[in-house]
């Protein structure tokens, strides 16, 4: 499915949002969103606070289901070509294949090993070898294995903030999702930890499709291949990152990038 494997045909987008409206109760949060995310690309969602970037992100793995009276009122969200709101979609399977990392690092107060193995365990994996292997693979991907391999049984809360967030990434990729959603993963971290996670994202793009919400435009430039700019619930512009930042088509995008408003 990778573009490299079959360069001639255009692979289908892994995530596609079509004409989507989204409401919290009676207030509309997203208007007519159209978005295509391709395999193995990093897509950044940027925009001022309250513009609906997180809401859009949470539509993809249906985390908005947890919010009472929040719902998609028009259009559809397709992941791997399947409408996620179809009645025959099993939420647990959807979320297994669309992982998520949250703004606040929130490891369970369990051992590092148990944190990473959590996703596999709830999906019924009992084989110790499989679990061991998955833990090592995920921690390696998250650039934590070398640091932590000798203390896998230590409590995850003993880790530093940056390590905790990378552990959360390891936990999210342990189930080998196709898409990894990241909701401002660096906003609570210091610059060095942020840098580490940004480096990590380039690595992760080899294996996963990453969609990241960020309020930091420089971060979007550094990590993403595509950028979507949202404003007041509307998708203003969606383009390759370089293009959007150097030569925006929309006046609104330009104004935002220049810092005229935020």
């Amino acid at each position, binding site marked *: 499915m990778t573009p490299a494997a079959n360069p001639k045909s255009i692979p289908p987008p892994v995530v596609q949002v079509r004409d989507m409206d989204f409401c919290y109760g009676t207030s509309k949060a997203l208007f007519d969103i159209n978005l295509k995310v391709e395999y193995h690309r990093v897509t950044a969602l940027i925009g001022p606070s309250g513009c609906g970037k997180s809401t859009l992100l949470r539509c993809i793995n249906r985390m908005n289901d947890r919010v009472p009276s929040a719902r998609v009122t028009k259009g559809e969200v397709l992941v791997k070509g399947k409408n996620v709101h179809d009645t025959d979609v099993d939420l647990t399977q959807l*979320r297994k294949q669309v992982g998520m990392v949250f703004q606040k690092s929130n490891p369970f107060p369990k051992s590092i090993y148990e944190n990473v193995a959590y996703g596999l365990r*709830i999906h019924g994996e009992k084989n110790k070898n499989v679990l061991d292997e998955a833990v090592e693979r995920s921690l390696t991907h998250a650039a934590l294995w070398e640091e932590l391999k000798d203390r896998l049984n230590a409590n995850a809360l003993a880790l530093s903030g940056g390590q905790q967030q990378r552990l959360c990434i390891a936990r999210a990729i342990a189930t080998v999702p196709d898409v990894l959603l990241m909701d401002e993963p660096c906003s609570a971290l210091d610059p060095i930890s942020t840098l580490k996670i940004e480096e990590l994202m380039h690595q992760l793009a080899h294996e996963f499709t990453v969609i990241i919400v960020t309020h930091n435009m420089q971060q979007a430039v550094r990590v993403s291949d595509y950028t979507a700019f949202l404003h007041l619930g509307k998708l203003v512009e969606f383009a390759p990152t370089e293009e959007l930042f150097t030569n925006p088509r929309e006046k609104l995008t330009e104004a935002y990038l220049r810092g005229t408003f935020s």
Partner: protein
Amino acid sequence: MNSVPTNDNPFAGDNSGIQQRETAARWALRVGSYIVVLTTVAIMLHIFVKGAPVVFRSQWPFVNTQFLTELPATLHVIEDQQGNHIETDVNGADAVKMKLGDNFRSEKTISYSGGGILGPIVGTALLVVVSVSVALFLGVACAIYLSEYAKHGKFLEMVRLAILNLAGVPSVVFGLFGLGAFVLTAPRFVAVPAERSVFAIPLGFTTLSFEGWDTCVLSGGFTLAFVILPVIITASEQCLQAVPQGFRETSMALGATRWQTIRYSVLPFATPGILTSSILGIARAAGETAPIMFTAALAFKDKLPWQKDMLPLPADASIFKHWEQSVSRFLGIFTESVQALPYHIYTLAAKIPQNEYAERAQHGSVFVFLVLVASLAASSVLLRKRLRAKYRW
């Protein structure tokens, strides 16, 4: 413009009554607190001074073993011509009288004040075990449902309010409820329904008859469970709410179902608090008198719940039959009525003529009771400390 500094104190207070009122308020609050503290200390001291001599001995084994290991009995006090008092039980009375012969002057009997209080201790323990098991199961289930599943809204608020109000219902009302619900109408399996059965559902091999469980540990335990249920529900819900929402979100985002999320990333972190509150529930259940008066407790019983007249094992007893009888004997414990500490204290204090011997038994019982409750409270504090250190986030 800057004012010229003077030698006057710029922060001098005005001489209105503010300062005096401040002092008066502080002293009023302080005196109130002192009254509370002093009263508590006085109660504790009184119980300790009067109760400890009954329970403790100055010689090995330092504890009045008779008081802790014997069932309550009638105390016989025989006085001789010299005014000496000899205490004995009903079996020893005649021998003492015989020995005294002409020296005998008078004999007094004081109900329930002889022997020990093993019966009430055992009864209270059984009641607590049953009530806490039932209340924990129902309470935690209810708390999980209210906190994790139920839709937020007016109805949920009303349910919460109702539960809180349940905590304010007088305990004697629970006693009457238990009498009506568990003693007289709860369902049980019987071969032939009793005459008073509310209604009976024949099931072929047996009959489910709503004829109640009689006064027994089970009835009393269930009644007590409903007394402590509001406390356990409220506390458990708070403990569940205290688990960060992020744990639930993360777990869900990893593809866990709602129950998996609760089971693996909410309950383990709420358990310490739930256990702590349930231990306080134990103290409450152990102390209630009114709910068990009509449902489980007897003023006096000369047997422990497992000392029952049972058919002797048949001669050809196979292991299986023996096992069956052991189980029925064990279950039989819970269908016996028992003595309980708070009710025993009530009996000693209000149902028999007061004299020094009755008072001694009262204080001993109260002391033992207080030590039990205090140690439960202490263990709850310890447990909370330990578990908190383990599950901190």
